[in-house]
């Protein structure tokens, strides 16, 4: 089995070869299995909502081309948020040839609900009984063969993290592709009668099984108009027949049709699970969960976690930065310098190139990478333990004050890694209002690149209390902005509805793999930009044009913010990448004062370094963030948010500069 195409955004319609969708409840290991099957590196977490878009890849299995589609997690086929709508659309509008239903073996009955729904819809289904190892540890044993017999579809026990059973799953899915399963399960006679009556009135051209479509109509998960668009002759008559069937079902069951269908499917799932479960386990780690979400213990724990992250970044990242900088000065800088001077002589060209290939690269390696690497390792650990899931509950009350539900804490925390995936992750939020508020706040959350600036400038030169103070200011700004937006933008905040997952021990392999994926992206994107930026700035500097270029900024940069004009010029480059500004500033210092003078404190006061980092942290998000913000919220809103952050940063920077001078 080998991957033959890259991770790519989903295309609608037919894909190459056999299309197999990976579906399942949130947090059952879909992306882990997708990664294992494709060799790709979609990021995985121990909390729901990590996958918000369709990931597709093409693999070869015994010479056959198979397109795999990794769907966002869903509990049922209703559309309540962007990620769930994407999953539903992928299944209903462009039905795959087969569906691998990935279920959590530690919570079989609840997971079978979706499996039954998929079988009802007529998909060729293969069940991957995932987390088989966790089930075994919890004392749960499931008879996979009996489960297959009862469902009428193949069932393969799997351990996604180790790759166990995955080839068998894929082989079974390819074998099942295109063959509609014989539905063995049956609901109550009353429900089956209504389903059969409604199904018989549906046109045969719909892209779903008629039984499945009838059930969806009764559940209210599919509007008759949606089917009428495909089969116009059904039209209003179908809506009428659906309403009549729902009314009869309601009269017979004493509850709304949607509830009656859900109850019957749950009851069936429960009966099947009870038959195949040899021994049962229980939700473990409840005490740890309680400690993590109760404010009395959860808030101190959160502060301790944040302090540990801060301390590791300060001492660990700082030590790594010093190590890399020293090694660069001893081992890399002299030969680079000698080579460029030998090739280009002592002229402007050589000095300009030295900006990029010596000072620029040194800045990337000693300012950017150490802090980014350290931060991503810590984020990976937090993600995989499931602690961030607890944070959504703990912070729900606070988030409501900002017009958000606790669920928004996940993209906000993800924003501390990188704003881009965090904004893409807004799709897990239920309302446009929530997405707008969260999207605005994310642009102000210090991402790993800004963290590199804060630690590489403020903590490194001024000490950790200054860095802590800067984080305090930024946190206050984010809270105030959220509070204000909650009052300005009409409509209420949606309620939290989140599943609680047990804590898990992260594996070193997964954390290091995720860190590598993220740092690799950082290196491959950042290095060329920093090189190019350094060379451009170098050319401006070496030709003396830098003073000219900095001149228009002088009233704001020198007059209001009290910064050196050239420092203001580097801020302009930060729209490409946030840490680029600091890296260019370090490069500027090296070129201005020679090696050893990368100490910002040699030409900036403590007040100026703090103000510089504050402005850089808050003002305009990087260009990649602006682009995804435009896609998520619209170009106008993205432009407004970007300009708003510039105004806010300049205003705050000026006040901070004056306040610091007074202290």
């Amino acid at each position: 089995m080998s991957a033959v195409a890259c991770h790519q955004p989903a295309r609608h319609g037919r894909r190459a070869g056999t299309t197999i969708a990976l579906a399942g409840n949130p947090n059952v290991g879909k992306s882990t299995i997708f990664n294992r099957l494709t060799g790709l590196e979609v990021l995985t977490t121990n909390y729901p909502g990590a996958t918000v878009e369709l990931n597709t890849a093409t693999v070869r299995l015994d010479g056959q081309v198979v397109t795999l589609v990794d769907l966002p997690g869903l509990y049922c086929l209703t559309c309540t948020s962007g990620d769930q709508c994407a999953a539903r659309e992928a299944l209903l509008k462009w039905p795959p040839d087969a569906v691998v239903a990935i279920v959590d073996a530690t919570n079989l009955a609840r997971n079978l609900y979706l499996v039954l729904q998929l079988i009802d819809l007529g998909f060729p289904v293969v069940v991957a009984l995932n987390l088989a190892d966790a089930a075994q540890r919890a004392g749960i044993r499931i008879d996979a063969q009996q489960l297959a017999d009862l469902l009428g579809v193949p069932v393969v026990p799997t351990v996604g993290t180790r790759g166990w059973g995955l080839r068998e799953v894929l082989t079974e899915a390819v074998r099942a592709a295109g063959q509609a399963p014989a539905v063995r399960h049956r609901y109550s006679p009353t429900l089956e009668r209504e389903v059969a009556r409604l199904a018989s009135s549906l046109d045969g051209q719909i892209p779903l099984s008629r039984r499945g479509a009838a059930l969806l109509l009764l559940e209210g998960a599919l509007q008759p108009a949606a089917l009428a668009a495909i089969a116009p002759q059904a039209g209003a008559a179908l809506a009428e027949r659906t309403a009549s069937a729902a009314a009869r079902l309601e009269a017979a069951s004493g509850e709304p049709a949607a509830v009656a269908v859900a109850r019957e499917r749950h009851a069936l799932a429960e009966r099947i699970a009870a038959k195949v479960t040899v021994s049962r386990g229980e939700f473990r780690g409840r005490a740890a969960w309680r400690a993590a979400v109760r404010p009395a213990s959860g808030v101190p724990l959160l502060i301790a976690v944040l302090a540990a992250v801060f301390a590791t970044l300060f001492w660990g990242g700082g030590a790594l930065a010093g190590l890399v900088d020293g090694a660069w000065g001893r081992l890399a800088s002299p030969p680079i310098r000698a080579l460029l001077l030998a090739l280009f002589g002592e002229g402007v060209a050589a000095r300009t190139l030295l900006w990029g290939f010596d000072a620029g690269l040194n800045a990337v390696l000693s300012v950017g990478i150490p802090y980014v690497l350290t931060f991503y390792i810590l984020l990976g650990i937090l993600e995989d333990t499931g602690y961030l899931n607890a944070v959504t509950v703990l912070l729900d009350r606070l988030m409501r004050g900002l017009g958000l539900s606790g669920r928004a804490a996940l993209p906000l925390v993800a924003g501390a890694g990188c704003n881009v995936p965090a904004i893409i992750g807004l799709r897990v939020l239920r309302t446009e209002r929530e997405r707008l508020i969260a999207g605005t706040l994310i642009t102000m959350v210090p991402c790993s690149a800004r963290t590199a600036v804060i630690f590489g400038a403020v903590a490194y030169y001024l000490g950790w209390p200054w860095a802590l103070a800067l984080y305090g200011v930024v946190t206050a700004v984010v809270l105030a902005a959220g509070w204000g937006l909650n009052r300005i933008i009409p409509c209420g905040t949606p309620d939290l509805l989140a599943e609680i997952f047990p804590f898990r021990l992260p594996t070193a392999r997964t954390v290091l793999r995720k860190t590598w994926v993220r740092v690799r992206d950082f290196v491959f994107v950042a290095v060329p930009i920093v090189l190019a930026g350094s060379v451009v700035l170098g050319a401006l500097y070496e030709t003396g044009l830098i003073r000219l270029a900095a001149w228009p900024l002088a009233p704001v940069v020198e007059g209001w913010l009290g910064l050196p004009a050239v420092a203001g010029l580097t801020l302009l480059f930060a729209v490409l990448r946030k840490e680029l500004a600091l890296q260019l500033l370090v490069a500027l210092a090296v070129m201005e004062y020679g090696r050893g003078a990368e100490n910002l404190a040699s030409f900036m006061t403590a007040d100026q370094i703090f103000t510089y980092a504050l402005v850089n942290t808050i003002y305009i998000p990087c260009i990649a963030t602006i682009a995804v913000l435009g896609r998520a919220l619209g170009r106008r809103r993205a432009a407004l948010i970007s300009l708003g952050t510039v105004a806010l940063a300049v205003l705050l920077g000026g006040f901070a500069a004056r306040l610091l001078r007074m202290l």
Partner: protein
Amino acid sequence: MAAELAALRLLPGEPVEVIEVMPLGGPVLVQTAGGVYALGRRLAGRIEVRGDP
């Protein structure tokens, strides 16, 4: 949201155990046969729970 609640087995008549009630209007943690869930206080407030006799 009703369909999602139903899929999570938060249905009328289903047994629910309240595990934790967060102070200051925070969410309520409940365990059902389907799993453990955090419900926002307004949502939880709309669910009527009767104790065991």
